[in-house]
């Protein structure tokens, strides 16, 4: 599985990667981005390659471009449209969840999280892909 992890915290990117492995995701490649703008650049570069990614996991509260702007812009540009995106964030309020889902996010996980929560959210998405 090829995964794009978007978070301004290098520590959280490591924690998320570890949680995915513990959840049983067979990671073959992990691409990291510091913010939404970097993630968009990664997706634009990968446009046309098959498969670009199997999963995108993004934080919301990031400098430069936050996670909600990122997935909204991704939808607008039609980048990797079939790749499920999951938000992992401390911002668990209803408006944020609604905005993320409207922009095409397939899952929403609040920090702090458990490996079981990651598994329950991510595995059905990967199975359906």
């Amino acid at each position, binding site marked *: 599985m090829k995964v794009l992890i978007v978070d*301004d*915290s*290098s*520590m*959280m990117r*490591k*924690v998320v990667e*570890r949680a995915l492995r513990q959840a049983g995701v067979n990671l073959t490649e992990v691409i990291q981005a510091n913010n939404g703008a970097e993630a968009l650049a990664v997706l634009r570069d990968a446009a046309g390659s098959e498969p670009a990614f199997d999963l995108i996991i993004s934080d919301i*509260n*990031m*400098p430069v471009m936050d996670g909600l702007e990122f997935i909204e812009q991704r939808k607008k540009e039609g980048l990797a449209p079939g790749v499920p995106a999951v938000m992992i*964030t*401390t*911002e*668990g*309020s*209803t*408006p944020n969840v609604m905005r993320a889902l409207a922009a095409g996010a397939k899952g929403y996980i*609040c*920090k*702090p*999280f*458990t490996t079981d929560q990651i598994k329950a959210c991510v595995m059905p998405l990967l199975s359906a892909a």
Partner: protein
Amino acid sequence: MAAAIAGELASTSMSTVTDAVYLDQAVEEVFGLMLGVPVEVVGEELQRGEETAMMTAMIGLAGAISGTCAMLVRSDGAVHMASCMAGTELNAVDETVLDGLGEITNMLAGAWKAKIPELNGACMLSVPTVVTGTQYEVHRRAPAFLVERGYRVGEHLFTVRIYGVIH
């Protein structure tokens, strides 16, 4: 919508915001789930004092309340916390430790506000700032509320302080 929520908050929830049980629960969750270590409440809060090895991670709160969520910890405690979170032994304060300390404080702030329904949708968090040392001053409006607790993780003490103004 936000103003109405803030008005409701100001009139009804000062006691909720200052109830330390929500902070205790948030600390327990973050350290238990993300660091895999237990914490205990201790009677004393860690103060800045004259210690140059002190580190302070801060998250700004905006919206229904304006304020700060701060965690104070000595550098050896910060290294311990970051090591637990990273799952690898770290030996000194570096970018990974600073990053980890900020992220832990971010999760504390998020977990705390998530426990207070009036705040959860009406309070936003800033990205973290981490200050090393004690030679700084924080200038702020007189806080209308303050909740502060001391904790111990392993052999390390740390303090979490949330203060601000309710709008």
